[in-house]
């Protein structure tokens, strides 16, 4: 089975720790695939490895083309959007500058972005460092949506947000899922159940389960793979 993104035998060492020990999976075209697992298991590292932000070994193919040898900026240019775990908006730049920086080849979809996040248009001249957590999250997502990407890599977009905002973000992602493909790292199972089509579960540096999002209805499975008391 070939997908939009094909990962084979991915290994990542951080210091002396063998974080990813031969991770292999496919991300199918269309909709959201959720990447799940306990804390610290390597989900964020997997996303960073795809982008080449950490040294890694293994095969990475995007729409059939091998990208593991390319430098990060080239990988991104082939059509990857990234929403990092800590948002990483540039605090000293304005909202508008943060977005402008993300422009690639002039096909910037400002209409879409301002439709999804009208507040960003109002705050265009505000320094991103003075925004609230939720607003920064909007900038981070808007940045990734600005260009028509083949695949979005989204890392815990609801982390640290108030429930109302979580719902807003989920709503945006629902819109996104209609037209684009995304690999979503998310701790909140409620969000995953609402948005994801398929799931991939990591444990101890390897993939231990792939399947449909409906698998999460199986409580025994959830308990086994993700531990007790996982956020609903």
């Amino acid at each position, binding site marked *: 089975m070939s997908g939009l993104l094909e990962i084979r035998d991915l290994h990542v060492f951080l210091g002396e720790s063998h974080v990813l020990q031969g991770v292999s999976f496919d991300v199918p075209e269309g909709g959201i695939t959720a990447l799940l697992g306990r804390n610290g298991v390597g989900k964020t590292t997997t996303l960073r490895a795809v*982008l080449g*932000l950490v040294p890694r070994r293994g095969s990475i193919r995007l729409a059939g083309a091998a990208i593991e040898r390319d*430098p*990060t*900026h*080239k990988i*991104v*240019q082939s059509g990857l959007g*990234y929403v*990092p775990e800590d948002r*990483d908006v*540039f*605090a*000293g*730049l304005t909202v508008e*500058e943060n977005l*402008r*920086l*993300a422009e*690639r080849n002039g096909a910037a979809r400002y209409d879409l972005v301002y439709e999804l996040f009208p507040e960003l248009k109002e705050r265009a001249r505000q320094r991103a460092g003075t925004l609230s957590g939720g607003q920064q999250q909007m900038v981070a997502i808007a*940045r990734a949506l600005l260009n028509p990407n083949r695949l979005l890599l989204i890392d815990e977009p609801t982390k640290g947000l108030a429930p109302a905002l979580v719902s807003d973000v989920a709503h945006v992602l629902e819109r996104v899922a209609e037209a684009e493909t995304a690999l979503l790292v998310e701790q909140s199972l409620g969000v995953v159940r609402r948005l994801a089509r398929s799931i991939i579960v990591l444990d101890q540096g390897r993939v231990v389960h792939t399947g449909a999002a409906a698998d999460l209805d199986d409580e025994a499975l959830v308990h086994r793979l993700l531990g007790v008391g996982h956020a609903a």
Partner: protein
Amino acid sequence: MSTFVLLTITGLGLGAMYFLVASGLSLIYGLMGVLNFAHGAFLTVGAYATWFTESKLGGISSVTLRFLLASLVGLAVGALFAALVELVLIRPLYLRHIEQVLVTVGLSLAMVALVQGIWGNDARLYAVPNWFRETTHVGGATIPNDRWLDIGAAVLVLAGLKAFLRYTRYGLVIRAGVENRAMVTALGIDVRKAFTLVFAIGGLAAALAGILSGVYFTEVDPGRGTSLLIFAFIVVVIGGLGSLTGSAVASVVVGLSQQYVNYYSSGVGDLSVVLLLALVLLARPATLAGRTA
């Protein structure tokens, strides 16, 4: 009072030179994490290129014109040399910061030796337009006009750099890169071009400092780059690595304190600057605890 005015203007003039060197250092370190010991070499190369060109333009009778043309050449040489250094020596060592620093160390030693070899250790006189040698009277003090040149140049460069950073795409990339280089690449931007540009800018500013120092001290010698570089490092560290405004403020502070302390306490000015650095670092070491990619 007039002494005070003279000291102040002179301090600002020196501070201007420090700023010109520090601005490049600060940007380079802020964006690339490279502690560029070869920056003094950019200064020396620019200064000597100017002197050399000037000496070959004997056919032109106007000293001012000769000086201007020679300066343009010196600035171009400084910028090109710096860009070349980045492309050939720094870029291949991407992310290997220690090796990058070491390479700049080796280059600084080699360049000074090369200049010594070609033109000897003795200082070379700068032929300077008369206006710089004349003086103006301000607040009862007699100020040599080259001080105005130094201050003016620094202000222009500061304004120019700020405008560049604010209004151009490369400026945007650099500002973002100083904050978080990895994220800039994760937006699909090839930061390496910005690196070369920053080196070129640094080389230009350092060459300008070299030329101005030639006017200020009426001569250049192979060691000029190194001696100004030390002060520039101090300025950059006090002002905050990566901060252009910080460097500007710090260079004023350093230039002024050097003059005042030197005068009012017979010669301990240089020492006081060094002490100032130590104090600043001890008070807030956190700002310097390493830059990550």
